[in-house]
């Protein structure tokens, strides 16, 4: 009884995939449903060049990776300090950061624009990186701090007796132990930054600095009616996300649903 409805379930993403393959057809009008008789691979090459996809990938990668690294570095230190050391402001600091979880950064985009402008960071990848790092701090701290709370204190005590400085303890004990939490944070942060369109739209004007999301948008604006090229560009642009998903689906799903499940 339920089985027939699964077909629809599968239908949806496959629809996406099958029809993405239309990209190589010159005459979409004549052969709407079938795979093209003479696949026009040239479309892909054209789209790659004209949509400046190499550039887009490069920029997206730089921004996403840098954000990922900064977020993990900063928040793991912060979470360690908050989780494992007693001082009076501990709870207050944590609540302060948690406030950030509830505040959608998008709503402050006007002052953010002015702020980055005054720092001379608009239209730079560095500015984007700083911005994305700040935005992703609360979630990461939330995950890491809660994870660190479960690390038994005896381990740290032992390391201290052995004469380790906090920094050494951090590096040699905390970080390796937190690998699962760090990978969740890493994945979620990377994907969120890669997929973002809003902030690049507002802050980046120079086409050479556009990440893939913005690049495709520009491309669509410039080549409005050249359907095959548009489809090809979309396929190429979606590739990294799909490939990433193919390799990391389990971790990705776990990470992205962290916010809602327990």
């Amino acid at each position, binding site marked *: 009884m339920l089985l027939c409805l699964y077909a629809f*379930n599968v239908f949806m993403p496959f629809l996406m995939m099958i029809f993405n393959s239309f990209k190589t057809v010159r005459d979409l009008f004549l052969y*709407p449903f079938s795979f093209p008789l003479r696949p026009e691979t040239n479309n892909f090459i054209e789209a790659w060049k004209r949509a400046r996809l190499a550039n887009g990938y490069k920029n997206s990668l730089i921004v996403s990776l840098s954000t990922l690294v900064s977020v993990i570095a900063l928040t793991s230190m912060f979470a*360690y300090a908050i989780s494992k050391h007693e001082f009076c402001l501990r709870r207050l600091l944590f609540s302060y950061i948690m406030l950030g*979880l509830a505040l959608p*950064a998008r709503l*402050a985009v006007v*002052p953010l624009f002015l702020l980055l402008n005054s720092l001379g960071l608009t239209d730079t990848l560095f500015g984007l990186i700083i911005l994305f790092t700040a935005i992703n701090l609360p979630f990461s701290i939330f995950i890491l701090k809660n994870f660190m709370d479960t690390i038994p204190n005896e381990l740290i005590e032992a390391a201290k007796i052995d004469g380790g*400085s906090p920094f050494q303890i951090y590096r040699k004990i905390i970080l390796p132990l937190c690998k699962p939490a760090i990978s969740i944070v890493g994945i979620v942060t990377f994907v969120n930054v890669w997929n973002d369109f809003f902030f690049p739209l507002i802050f980046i004007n120079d086409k050479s600095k556009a990440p893939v999301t913005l690049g495709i948008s520009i491309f669509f604006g410039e080549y409005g009616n050249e359907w095959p090229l548009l489809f090809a560009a979309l396929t190429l642009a979606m590739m990294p996300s799909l490939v990433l998903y193919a390799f990391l689906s389990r971790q990705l799903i776990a990470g*992205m649903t962290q916010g809602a499940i327990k």
Partner: protein
Amino acid sequence: MKTKIKKKEKKYILLFIIPTLILYTLFIIYPLFSSLALSFYSWPGAGKPTFVGLRNFRMLFVGPFSKELFNAFFHNVYFFILTSLFELGIGFFIAVMLATKIKRISIFKTIIYIPNMIPIILVGFMWSLFLNPQIGFVNQLLRAIGLKNLAKPWLGDPNLALTVIILVNVWRSIGFYVLVLLAAIQNIPLDLIEAAYMDGASNWQLIRKVIFPLTLPTFRTLLILLFIWSFNTFELIYAMVGVQAGPFRSTDVLGTLFYRTAFGGLGSAVVDMGLGAAVTVFIFCIVMPLSILYVVYKEKRESER
């Protein structure tokens, strides 16, 4: 037993905390207050901002912009209601199906989340092509199966456009809700389900009386998230109909309205960052209470672990 702080440790701790704090305060906390402050000014880009008190708000709520504002607002509400119905409603049933122990069900789990991975903006562009009246497969499919009359200009019809966009959103996002609901369903102890079957419950009764009530808390959390996201929606509209939210502003939402007022675009009467800030204050007031509720729930659940 926690350790006590020694002087040298204190230095390290400060080192660990300060960079994060600075970044956070400077780029998250400060801009939000600044946004509130800015909403009391008028600043058309060039020149200096001038203090105008409540004028921006007056313009938005009772003045020349009120029609656009409330138009957008009701679209957001419509977006929320429809999206919730579809994503949670259909999502729930898909989750129930996925929870059964049929062989290799987990493949579907992986498949249904795929659209979630793609940047929303790309999903929007892709579907804008699919829905194109001439070359999009939607209309071609309809024509092929003989429903020629239904082949409409989906995104060009003021009555249909928003609903169509919502459907695309459902297509893209439903995976998330399915997976969360699935986890909730799988948390139900098997004995309960077995007991229900032994008492002679049919599948449908099982769903209605056992599964659904036990997953209600999850629905609550998801609704909150959906609400927040519905009011923040922007990319999909931008990709599918542009920031002008055509046709005739029938797809306008607060996000696009904000973008037009703060940064301009063809056909917007006024470009005023102060006015834009006022729009964000409005969105903020709507979304904030629920956001806080959500974080409070999260905290509560973490502490219950």
